[in-house]
Structures are given as C-alpha cells and as structure tokens.
C-alpha cells in the first residue's frame, strides 16, 4: 500500500477532474451515462478520502503531514508538486468529497433549469478538484492554482443555473474573489523572495520549509499579512468584505449554495490557519485583535441582517456570515482551544448549512418561491417530514448543546476568555461577551424562522397542491448530513482528536 499512500491524495483530487473530462466527451443525449460517471467519479473520490481517513495515523501523528507526495514541478521558480494532509487539512478534505458526492446524488433527480446535465455535472466535478486540491496543497503556487480553479466552475454554476440576478451575482463573486486572491499572490511572492530553501539554497514556495524562517522586518511582515488577509478575508467572507455572499448564495442553484457555504468559505479560514498564521506568526499576533474585532462585528451584523430577511436563502447566507465570524474569532485568539474550535466550527457549519441550503433548494423547487411568508406558515401540515428536518437543522445551526453547532461556538467563546500570551485579555473578553449576545440573536432569528415556516395553519390552497414530502433521493443525500449533525454533537472528539495535536504544533508559535 506504499504506492497508494503516495498517490492517494492525487487520486482524490484528480479523479473528479478525470470524470469531468469524460463527461464532456459523452454525447449530449446520453444523460444516463453522464449521471453514472458523475456518481462514479465523486464516489471514488469519497472512497479515497475515507481510506485516507482510515489509514491516517491519529494521536500525536496528526501533527505531521501524511500521505505526502513531493515531486519536481516548475524548476525555474522552485515550485513543487507537494501535497499532504495533517490533522488540520484532513477533516476539510473529507468534508469536501462527502458534500460533493451528496450534491451529485441530490442532482440526479433535482436539477435547476436549464436542464443540461452534462455541463452541470462536469462543472461540479471540476469544482471538487479545485476545492479538494486547496486543502491538501503544501506548495504556495499549487495552493494558488487550486484556489483559483474553483472560480470558473462556480461562476458558471451561478450564472447558468442560478435565479434572478444570476449574472450579476456570479460576476460579483468572481471579481471580488479574484481581487483578493491576486493580492494574496503578491503576498506569496513577497514571502518567496525573502525565503531560502534549506536543501537547495534557492527561494522556496514550500509551506513547511517556510515555517520559522526569518522573512524580514515587522513592517514588511505586516504588509505581507495584509495581502494574505485580503485574499482569505474576502473568501471567508469577513465583514466588511461579505457583500458578495448574499447575492451569490441567494441566486446560486441549490448545490451551488451548498458547496459555496459548505466548502468554499472554509478555504478562506483554512488559509488563515494553514498559511497566514504559521508563516507569519508575529504579524498574525499584531493583526489578531483587529481580526477578532471584525469577527465579532460579523457575528452581530450577520445576526441582525438575518432578522431583516424575508428570503430564506439570503437568511441562511447571512447566518453564514455570523457563523464564520465565530470561526474567525476562534482563530484570532491564537490558542489551541480557539483554533480547534475554529476547525470544528468549519466542519459543523459545512454540515449544518449545507443541510439548510439543501432544504431551501427543495422548498424552492416545490413552492417556486424563496419568500418565507409565501412558503409558511404551516409547513408542518403540508410536508411534516421536511418541516421536521428543517426545524432540526435550524436548531443545530443556532447551537443547541448536543448538536454539531454547539461545540464550535462555545469553545470559540471560551477561547476568547483567555487568548494567547500578549493579546489583550480585556479586549478579547469584551469580544466574548459580544459574541455571546450574538448567540442569543442567532437563536432568535432561527426560532423565528421556524415559527414563520413551520407553525401556524397552512392555507387551503397550499394543502390542496399535494406537494411531495421528502423524496427517496433526498433521504439518501441528506441522511449522512443529519447523522453527522447528531454524531458531531454527541461526540465532538471525532474531529478534535484529529485536529488537536496539529493545532498544538501550530499554537506553540504563539506561547
């Protein structure tokens, strides 16, 4: 199995791409073949990631990169084909393959208009390659290629299969992210030209080799951090760079929203944990209070915006701003608890919000509206199972203890009580209190959502439509997520056991 260990990650990343290419070669009318290849390709990637998970060396081993492949790629600039996973990347890699597979399964029966399955599945698979590659790259150039690779497929997913102002939203998403990510590239290059490879003596893009190098004066490092911050913060998105998100989420097709919220946003927070913090620890220390401040604003602002939404998808989108605020607050404490909480929060948010967007999509498909007041009241009478799942996911999202959403938020706040050495304890405790207010507001809008949708009495006309309740294919696509919400809630150790040692290795830089 040694050969497998070397190439497992490459397989997981590129099998979807192979599937996408195969799909483009199939004649337009053979829809069945397209579906089979899409399921096979994304399923194979999922199997690979599960095998990686099973063969992963837990415990203290999570600090080290495993399944490493390190080959020469572009000699002139010293960029290498270097991949590997540790405890930080692994949960997100598995989440990516799982969510994409579920999206493919969901799309077997439910696809947005226009119904052109060939392009649709090909783009989803291409997107998967970009997302999965981002979480396993250990070379800055390789990372950047995968990071940018998600832009084009997501753009077309929104622009072709979206709703309302789809072209506007798609373009806004694209240009916003591009703007941030090229500044991030400038930051990478600035790091590169101050670095030296311990083996060859040349400059290096290698994330591992770059750790602990002396790269320049504090002023220089802060400037470089600013470049990386812009790239990552727009992707997260942190307030005030979030304005692309409600539009993109609102107008994207269902699986587009699921993947956007479930995976793409995590690329930003992952970037902070994987690149910005370990490569520029001193600058991260300087920036941490500001990042924490923006995170708390995002929590409160997201919650307040949610209270004002009438559109269910925009509401979930704004709730993402708030939840990612908790993740960023955890990261900004620079403590082991905080960053563990952040990664847990990323996974939990991916599962819960992915579920919520699936629900919003299925409701839209049945009711042809996203207005909360038009769907409700009385969803429990019209389709009781759907309503039940919605209530469950919404309660998980507001952070009820025992479900997945709870741990990320509570540990994040807990970490803010006692931030890393050198950070102002008073300031972070203020953040904690404000974040706590945010959780109350979150509970408020989520419960209000349940009240407006589920409760009350449905109109006769609605009852007369005899709409489908949850369909078999939806059960198949959703049950892993529902199980995940419960499992992570009852046994958060499942994720924390993977992340803890790796995070410990990272936070030692800040003690």
């Amino acid at each position, binding site marked *: 199995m040694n050969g497998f260990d070397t190439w497992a990650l490459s397989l997981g990343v590129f099998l979807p791409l192979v599937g996408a290419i195969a799909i483009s070669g199939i004649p337009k009318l053979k829809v069945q073949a397209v579906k089979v290849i899409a399921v096979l390709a994304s399923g194979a990637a999922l199997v690979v990631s599960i095998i990686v998970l099973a063969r992963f060396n837990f415990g203290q081993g999570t600090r080290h990169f495993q399944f490493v492949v390190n080959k020469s*790629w*572009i*000699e*002139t*600039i010293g960029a290498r084909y270097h991949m590997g996973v540790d405890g930080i990347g692994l949960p997100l890699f598995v989440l990516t393959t799982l969510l994409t597979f579920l999206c493919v399964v969901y799309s077997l029966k439910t696809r947005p208009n226009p119904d052109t399955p060939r392009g649709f599945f090909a783009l989803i698979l291409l997107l998967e390659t970009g997302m999965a590659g981002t979480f396993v790259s250990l070379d800055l*150039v390789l990372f*950047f*290629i995968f990071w*940018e*690779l998600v*832009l*084009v497929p997501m*753009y*077309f997913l929104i*622009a*072709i299969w979206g709703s309302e102002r789809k*072209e506007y939203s*798609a*373009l806004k998403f*694209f*240009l916003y992210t*591009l*703007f941030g990510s*090229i*500044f991030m*590239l*400038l930051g990478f*290059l*600035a790091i*590169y*030209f101050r670095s030296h490879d311990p083996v060859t003596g040349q400059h290096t893009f290698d994330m591992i080799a770059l750790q602990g190098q002396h790269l320049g004066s504090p002023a220089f490092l802060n*400037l470089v951090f600013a470049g990386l911050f812009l790239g990552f913060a727009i992707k997260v998105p942190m307030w005030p760079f979030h304005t692309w998100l409600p539009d993109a989420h609102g107008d994207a097709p269902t699986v587009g929203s699921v993947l956007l919220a479930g995976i793409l946003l995590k690329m930003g927070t992952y970037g902070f944990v994987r690149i910005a913090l370990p490569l520029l620890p001193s600058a991260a220390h300087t920036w941490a209070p500001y990042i924490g401040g923006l995170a708390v604003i995002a929590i409160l602002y997201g919650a307040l915006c949610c209270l004002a939404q009438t559109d269910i998808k925009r509401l979930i989108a704004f709730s993402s701003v708030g939840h990612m605020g908790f993740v960023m607050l955890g990261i900004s404490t620079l403590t082991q608890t905080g960053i563990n909480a952040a990664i847990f929060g990323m996974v939990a948010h991916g599962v819960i919000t992915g579920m919520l967007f699936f629900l919003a999509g299925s409701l839209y498909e049945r009711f042809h509206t996203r207005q909360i007041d038009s769907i409700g009241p009385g969803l429990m009478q019209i389709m009781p199972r759907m309503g039940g799942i919605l209530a469950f996911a919404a309660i998980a999202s507001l952070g009820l203890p025992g479900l997945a959403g709870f741990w990320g938020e509570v540990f994040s706040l807990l970490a803010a009580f006692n931030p890393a050495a050198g950070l102002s304890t008073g300031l972070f405790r203020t953040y904690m209190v404000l974040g706590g207010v945010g959780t109350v507001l979150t509970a408020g809008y989520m419960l209000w959502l349940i009240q407006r949708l589920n409760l009350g009495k449905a109109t006769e006309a609605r009852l007369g439509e005899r709409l489908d309740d949850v369909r078999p294919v939806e059960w198949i696509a959703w049950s892993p997520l529902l199980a995940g919400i419960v499992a992570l809630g009852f046994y958060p150790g499942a994720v924390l056991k993977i992340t803890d040692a790796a995070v410990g290795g990272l936070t030692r830089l800040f003690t």
Partner: protein
Amino acid sequence: MSSIDLHASLPEIILTGALMLILFIDLFLPSERKSWNGPIAMAGVAGSMVALFTLVGERRVTFAGMFVLDAYALLFKFLFLAIALVVILISTNYLEDTIRDSQGEFYFLLLTSFLGMMLMASARDLLMLFVSLELVSAPGFLVAGFRKRDARSNEAAIKFFLFGVLSTAVMLFGMSLIYGVTRSTNLSQIATALQHSSHDPLVFASILLILAGFAFKVSAVPFHFWAPDTYEGSPIPVAAFLSVASKAAGFAGMLSLMFVGFVHQTQVWAPGFAILAVLTMTIGNVVALQQTNIVRLLAYSSIAQAGYILLPFAVVKGGSPAVLRDAFAACLTYILIYSFMNIGAFAVVIGVSRKRPTNLISDYEGLMQSEPGLALAMAFFLISLAGIPPLAGFWAKFFVFSAAIHGNAAWLGAIMVVNSVIGAYYYLTVASKMILRPARDTSPIGVPYPIVVAIALSLIVVVGVGIYPNFFQHFSPRSTLIAFLR
C-alpha cells in the same frame, strides 16, 4: 567577422526566396487560382522553419556584428514563423471571400513584414533595428488598407501610416543623437560607451525619443490612438497580425535595445516605463469596458496586455542582475503566451465573421448553441487573457507579478491587480454572453478547416503551457542575450 555567414541567415534567405517566388508566380496565375499563393507562402515559412532548426544551439555573429543569431533570436524567430503559419491559415478563406484578386500581393507583403521581424530578432545595431522596424511596418501600412473600396479600411491604413511615420522619424532622431554621443551604432559598444554617463541629459532625451518609436509599435499609451481604428478597419487577419506579430516584434527590439544597449541607464528609463505601463494598462482596460464591437474590444484588450508586458521594464530601476533577469524573462514569457491566446481569439473572430460580418459583441450571444466548439475555444482564450489558472495566461501574469515583487515595486503589482480585475470583467462578460444568452441567429457558421487548425494549435499551446509551464522555460533564452550581466 569579415566574411558573411550565409548559414546563419538561411531562414531569412529562404523567406525572401518564397516572397519573390510569390510575386513572380502571381503574374501567371488566373483569377480562380490566386489561392495557390497561400500554400506557397506556407511552404516558404515551413522551409524557413526547417532552416532554423539546423541552427538550434548555435551562436553566430555576422554582417560585422549587426546580425546575431543566439538563443534569444532563435526563440523569437520560431515564434514569428509559428505566428506566420497561423496568420496564413486564418487568411486563406478570408481572402478568397473578400479580395481574391490581390492575394499574391497580400502574401508578398505579409511575408515581407515577417522577414522584418526575423531580422529584428537578430538586430544588435541601431541601423539594423531601424531597417527591420521599417520592414515590419511598411507592408503593414499597405495590408491594413487592403479592402480598397472600404472607407474604414482606408482610414485604418492612413492613420497607421501617419502615426508610424511620425514616430519613426522621432526614433531616428534619437538614434542619431546616440550615435553622436557614442560614435557607434552597435548596441554592446553603446553600452560600454554609456557605462559612466547615466545622468547625461542628452542620453536621457535620446532614449526617450527612441522609446517613442517602439511605443508606437507596441501601441503603448499615448502612442496607441491608431490601434483601435486600424484594427477595426483592416481585414481581420491583418488586425490579428498587427496585434500579435507586429507587437511582438516591437517588444523584441525594445528588449535588446533596453537590456543590451541602455542596460546601464535603468535609472533613466525604468521610471519612464512605469508611467507608460500604468497608463497603457489602465486606459486600455477602462476603454475596453465600453466597447460593443469585438474587434475594438480585442484592440483595447491588446493595448492593456501591452501594459502588462511593459511593467517588468519598470521594476529594474537600480535592481540587481537577478532582478534584471527576472524582468527580462517575465517580458519574454508574457509575449510568447500572449501571442498564442490573442491570435486564437482572433481566429475565432474570423470564423464567426464569415456569417456575422458586423463583428458586434451581441453577435456572439448564444454562440454556444449554434457553434459549441467555437464558443468553448473562445471562452478558453478569453479566460486565459484574463489570467485565470490553469490556463497559460495565468503564468504570463504570474511572472510579471513575480518580477514586480522581486524589484520591490509592489505598488506597480497592486495597480496591475486592479487592472486584472477590470480585464476579467469584460473578458468574462463576453464569455458568459456566448454561453448564457439565447441565440439571435442559430444558423450554423461552418468554419473552414484552416481556421479550425489555427484555433486548435493556439488552444493546445494555451492549455498545454497552462498545465505544464516548464515548456517555455526549457528554452532558457535569457541565458544568452543578457549573459554578460552576470
């Protein structure tokens, strides 16, 4: 040095033979067989390329040091011949449809211009640079006006001509001043003579004057006014030729001039290039936003792209040899990649214009439905021009950014970031119009196979280099031209 090395100039000799042959044979070809000129021209280019292969790895200096054949020259000559092949491929059907009786002259002029480019790549002497620049431009003036009865084509030619002549005169004045100061026209001797006179105002003035001539050739702002009108009015293959080959020739001359002749004057010219680059990319991009005609859009886009190529010149100010090398390599890589993605886009435009002759961007709406292959190819070229990985255009931009950061010119990099985003906006808008909008005219276009071949060749380069960027790096051209810098 006294004897003339014929082998070194064999590619040029073969090309000259081919263009003379065309001129001669064309006299005897009846109207319906004028299209034979195309294959003859192609054979000439292919023969020249074969001769070029025999020179790979050589370094020859002949014609009293005026003509140098090294890896740098070889690389550019291969590029020019490859572009010549593609231009001939995309011209054949276009000429048959529009100006069939003058095909002989067209190919004659085209090859003459390419001959000028081949010489430009080898020119290491002011006189030689001047002669080859004229040889590139003069046939260009004529082919731009080749649709003789079209007023816009006439306008295209006359504008191009007036701008060209004016800027050449200015450049020649600058060259004469340099000769007066250094008593030499040889670039390396000029460099030696100017080694210690970096602040001489006369040198400063003459560099600026010479720069004007080349700035016109690469359509840098403020010498760009001819480009959009000329591109729009010329036959489209000529627009493709001007925006790619002729521009690359301008950069070839500019590179050897700046990095060999005036290499000790970076303090003088780098700030000038900074202004030129920023103006060129910004104005090109901003004006491109408002275009409704695809050829004009590509014209302004090619102005903006020239701005990106100019940027590395601006970062070498007082930099180390390593910075100089990086900047040089960035320019070169950008030119190579730009040539293929831009000529690919033009090839698609020519294909579409056969049935939609107005060339409006709105003609491209719904192209995906009637011609999915064309639409996808165009989308690839546009996304590559926007610089999105994993297509070749990304690496072009990557190396420019890299040079900017290496030269401590992050502010120039930041300006280019903003410009890239503006560029992405209009490239993506066109791409999504082709794919998203309902088609106005769903009649099939029926692209002739020479154009298909041209598109396929460009596409292979754009995708191939995007995935495997080492491909261009293997040529290691930077090792020769600026070797003495180390």
